[in-house]
């Protein structure tokens, strides 16, 4: 047993110091959650992805259930950059937690213009959503390939001095290569990962359950994929990895930290329990105190792999 001390839940994402590793995932969080708890208990605030110009988003229904999770095809309904600058930025300035602005675009040029436009005082980091599966035809996105990832992150790196986070996609066969491409292009951190592309059909009507036909899976069902990718990226890269996907309990948070994540994002769990992020912050601190863990450094990346003896099949 270590001496009892107040555990330090702080974590460092590049140059950005967070008071704890719990933050929301883009698209599952907004000022509306301030109705439920004090948002300043969070490690950071991550906003819904914005795109240039006004956008309607996808047709309804935009969400449906799946076993141990949900699917969404919200799209990126967006009031554009003006609304962000004039209304949202002043609102979030009222909080102490660092503000992370998520951006996306259909083309490299649009991405660059948007990145420049949101590089404003009050923004602590930019999260490049290069993985959103709804916006490009048939679910394609920049983050599916190392080459397209490298190009877009390099362009974004060139147009902002803010910390730049690359949010990866699980819809790829080579997550470690994509992560390394983002790192080599200058990303300061990786967010691993976005939703998995799925589909559901209503048999009675023979129509898709989502207005957009396909949608992104999230929640506990995808946790093993996100954890696997977190581990792969943390092994392959030296920049910090932020785990995201299906995290809903303290045990989940610890799994991601042990796999190598320096922080985690909570998405769908907030829909099942809007108080969960605030409770995870407390639970993590209490667990550390009870275990005599004084800082997250004693947890992050501590996975042990036992050697196994093997027999001959008969």
């Amino acid at each position, binding site marked *: 047993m270590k001496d009892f001390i107040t555990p330090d839940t702080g974590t460092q994402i590049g140059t950005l110091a967070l008071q704890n590793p719990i933050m929301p995932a883009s*698209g*599952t*969080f*907004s000022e*509306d*959650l*301030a*109705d*439920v*708890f*004090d948002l*300043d*208990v969070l490690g950071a605030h991550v906003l*819904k992805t914005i795109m240039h110009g006004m956008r*309607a*988003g996808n047709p*309804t*229904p*935009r*969400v*449906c*259930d*799946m*076993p*141990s*999770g*949900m699917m*969404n095809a*919200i799209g990126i*309904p967006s009031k554009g950059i003006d609304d962000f600058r004039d209304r949202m930025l002043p609102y979030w300035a009222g909080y102490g937690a660092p503000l992370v602005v998520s951006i996306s675009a259909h083309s490299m040029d649009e991405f660059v213009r948007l990145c420049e436009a949101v590089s404003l005082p009050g923004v602590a980091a930019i999260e490049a959503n290069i993985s959103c599966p709804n916006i490009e035809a048939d679910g394609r996105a920049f983050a599916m390939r190392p080459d397209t990832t490298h190009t877009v992150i390099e362009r974004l790196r060139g147009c902002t001095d803010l910390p730049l986070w690359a949010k990866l996609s699980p819809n790829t066969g080579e997550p470690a290569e994509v992560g390394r491409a983002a790192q080599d292009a200058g990303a300061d951190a990786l967010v691993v990962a976005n939703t998995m592309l799925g589909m559901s059909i209503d048999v009675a009507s023979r129509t898709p359950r989502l207005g957009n036909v396909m949608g992104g899976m999230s*929640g506990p069902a995808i946790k093993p994929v996100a954890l696997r990718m977190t581990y792969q990226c943390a092994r392959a890269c030296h920049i910090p990895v932020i785990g995201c996907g299906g995290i809903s309990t303290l045990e989940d948070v610890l799994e991601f930290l042990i796999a190598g994540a320096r922080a985690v994002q909570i998405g769908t769990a*907030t*829909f*099942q*329990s*809007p*108080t969960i992020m*605030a*409770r995870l912050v407390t639970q993590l601190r209490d667990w550390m105190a009870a275990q005599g863990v004084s800082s997250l450094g004693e947890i992050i990346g501590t996975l042990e792999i036992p050697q196994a003896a093997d027999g001959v099949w008969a």
Partner: protein
Amino acid sequence: MTHSPTVMSVPVPQGLRARCSEATCRVVSNTPVNGEYRLLVLDAPPEVLDCQPGQFFQLLCPAPENEHPFLRRPMSIYGYDRRAGRLEFLYKVTGAGTRGLATLRTGDAFNVLGPLGHGFSMPDTWQNLMLVARGVGLATLAPLARLAHEKGRKLTAICSARRADLAMSVALFESFGAEVIVVHDEDASSTPEALRPLIEARIAQGTVDAFYTCGSARLLRLLQTLATTHGIPGEVAMEQQMACGLGMCQACVRSFRVGGEVIQRRVCREGPVFPISEAME
């Protein structure tokens, strides 16, 4: 094991109070009302009982056998009583979530989130109120009728149902001093054609200052026509698939006609109550 109703304890901003809370309630009863509906009565903590008629809760439904409802299910407040610590929902069993609700037994713990959204308004100029509801829409209008009664408003309630015996809460509406008119499909009294003269007669008598409706697109269309023709304001409670219920996810948008434009609003946040004149199907 019995549970005491409690709210999830989370830090709130200094000097403020959470507008809505996640709470664990205790099931007092969960009983069939008629063939299609069930009434769920909960012992609820005071933090979630500061309700307005028209608001709703997001219910975390237990899993029925072989099914996995994941998202919370939105449900209008059917009754609330802060002093008694009571919260009530009237629901129709239609799919996995409501089938799960039906499995709740007395004494079970049950997690709710609310109250959510904006309820009905009732300006002083609206003295004679006409409530037009179909099916489970009556659940939504019931607490409105109670409040109107407390405020001394005059009430007419048109209750539309598939069969006369399925029209719920008639006695309840009558206890709020409402004149209740039951219409149903079997004698075609519930068609817009049959309802139109009935409602226009009351308008002619000057006993309709405002409409409130819920539960039927056909009735909404009828009231929109009548509202425009006769310049009568009103409100409708609308539905849409939801994920968060709080305004965060943008799942629950619907289109509304505002000025010359079609705009989208979140049913959970800007609604679920909207001006009849702006609603679109």
